[in-house]
């Protein structure tokens, strides 16, 4: 299944993302995603463009004061406010007509403090137009990249027993959802789920009750993947159980970028000691499902 190309542009000036041409070509005709690359959310300026047309700038104090844009202080800033969030709605009608607001933002990003970043871009178009991103940004160094897919087969893997109706697990009959979450993390990291209690490196053991599965299939896709493709992937996983299969359940786990300025629905995302925000779908063969969502220290609770 194709997970769509994404594009990497080096040194793209930020004002290119607010030009009328860009908004009309990409933002209005589909879902356009952009995220700065190689910027740490707790140290540098980070910019993200959401598919609903909002451009979120997470700026440090000096940059915020130099651009002169209107924003609010970050929630995870500490004793002294060192980080500010500026949110520009590109779909806002008053933004489109040559209004004072647009002129101010345009002047600020073009002349007052021109910001340049390396961007990861992706565009999911509604309709059958061809992707024109490569030609639009041809004067900057744009490269098209495909998400990397790594597939491995795990043999004789100890898996926990789950019952779709029992989220908290039943004693001696099935495992609880938090235990499954830990086990999934161990499998994704390649940790052996069968350790001695006096092992120096890891004392993790598969939660009981468990079964030993002859073959398990682990597929990892790494890249800047749009939400629409993840929906398609999820639907295809549901169709896996159209014919009866030996497997009792399948999981789809999605991890967000650690340095993204937003997590769910524009709530702010921060990086304290780790910037994890992820969700996991566990789909059972009777098409029941569990949804687990996890956030790090500097995050709001997911919706």
């Amino acid at each position, binding site marked *: 299944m194709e997970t769509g190309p994404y594009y990497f542009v080096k040194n793209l000036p930020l004002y290119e993302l607010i030009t009328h041409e860009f908004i009309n070509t990409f933002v209005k005709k589909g879902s356009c995603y952009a995220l700065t690359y*190689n*910027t*740490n959310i*707790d*140290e*540098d300026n980070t910019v993200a463009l959401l598919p609903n047309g909002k451009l979120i700038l997470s700026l*440090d104090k*000096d940059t915020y*004061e130099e651009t002169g844009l209107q924003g609010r202080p970050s929630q995870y*800033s*500490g*004793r*002294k406010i*060192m*980080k500010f969030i500026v949110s520009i709605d590109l779909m806002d009608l008053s933004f489109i007509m040559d209004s004072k607001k647009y002129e101010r933002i345009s002047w600020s990003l073009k002349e007052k403090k021109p910001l340049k970043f*390396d961007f990861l871009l992706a565009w999911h178009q509604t309709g059958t137009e061809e992707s024109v991103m490569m030609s639009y940004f041809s004067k900057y160094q744009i490269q098209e990249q495909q998400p990397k897919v790594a597939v491995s087969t795990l043999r004789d893997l100890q898996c926990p027993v789950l019952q779709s109706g029992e989220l908290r697990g039943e004693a001696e009959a099935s495992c609880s959802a938090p235990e499954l979450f830990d086990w999934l993390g161990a499998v994704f990291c390649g940790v052996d789920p069968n350790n001695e209690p006096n092992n120096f490196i890891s004392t993790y053991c598969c939660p009981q009750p468990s079964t030993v599965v002859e073959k398990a299939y682990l597929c990892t896709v790494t890249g800047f993947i749009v939400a629409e493709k993840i929906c398609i992937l999820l639907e295809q996983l549901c169709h896996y159980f159209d014919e009866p299969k030996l497997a009792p359940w399948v999981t789809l786990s999605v991890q967000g970028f650690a340095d993204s300025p937003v997590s769910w629905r524009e709530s702010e995302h921060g990086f*304290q*000691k780790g910037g994890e925000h992820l969700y996991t779908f566990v789909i059972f063969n009777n098409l029941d499902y569990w949804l687990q969502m996890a956030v790090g*220290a500097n995050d709001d609770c997911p919706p």
Partner: protein
Amino acid sequence: MAVFADLDLRAGSDLKVLRGMVETAAHLGYSVVAINHVVDFKEKKQEIEKPVVVSELFTTLPIVQGKSRPIKILTRLTIIVTDPSHCNVLVACTHLDVDLVCITVTEKLPFYFKRPPVNVAIDRGLGFELVYSPAIKDSTMRRYTISNALNLMQICKGKNVIISSAAERPLEIRGPYDVANLGLLFGLSEVDAKAAVSTNCRAALLHGETRKTAFGIVSTVKKPRPSEGDDDSLPACKKAKCEG
């Protein structure tokens, strides 16, 4: 938030070791480092050695891991003041024109921190520096480091504290998140510990810059010689923010 900074890399005589230290710091994720020259005023009329010229050290600066920018290298001078009466050290520091007060860890502090001079120092924008590489080398130093740090925290409540390595070798530097965790052992809160490696270092650097300005608001820049005759543009005035 501010970028991670390590404001204390000890300058030895060997440039190769220094180069190794800066490269290690860039690899660990520090965006700013300061090469520290230590001067001990035991004898009068001691010459202060010339600071290391950065261009001699590197032709191309190493890139910080995880970012696309090169590391920034600054130089710093530390003066050891040995007063006959130790109790006056902190009072002297509240009047002297310095940016950072280093807390020694080689011995148990012979005096207790008093709240009034520490508060005066914080209001003036002084930072208190704790170093952690002696703690890596020796277990007695480790005890002194932690006890001196806890004493300081009780008085200053974690404000204006910076933590740096006094590293003489590349192996003595630790990553910024590890140093923030070390700050928790010293009695700082989680947010303060992270600020000790980033925000407070930035404040100390700005404090140093403002010493050349008038009240930290106006500074002068030398106007380049105009090539043509009539050039009546005003001299450039740079606005610098004064950080407390």
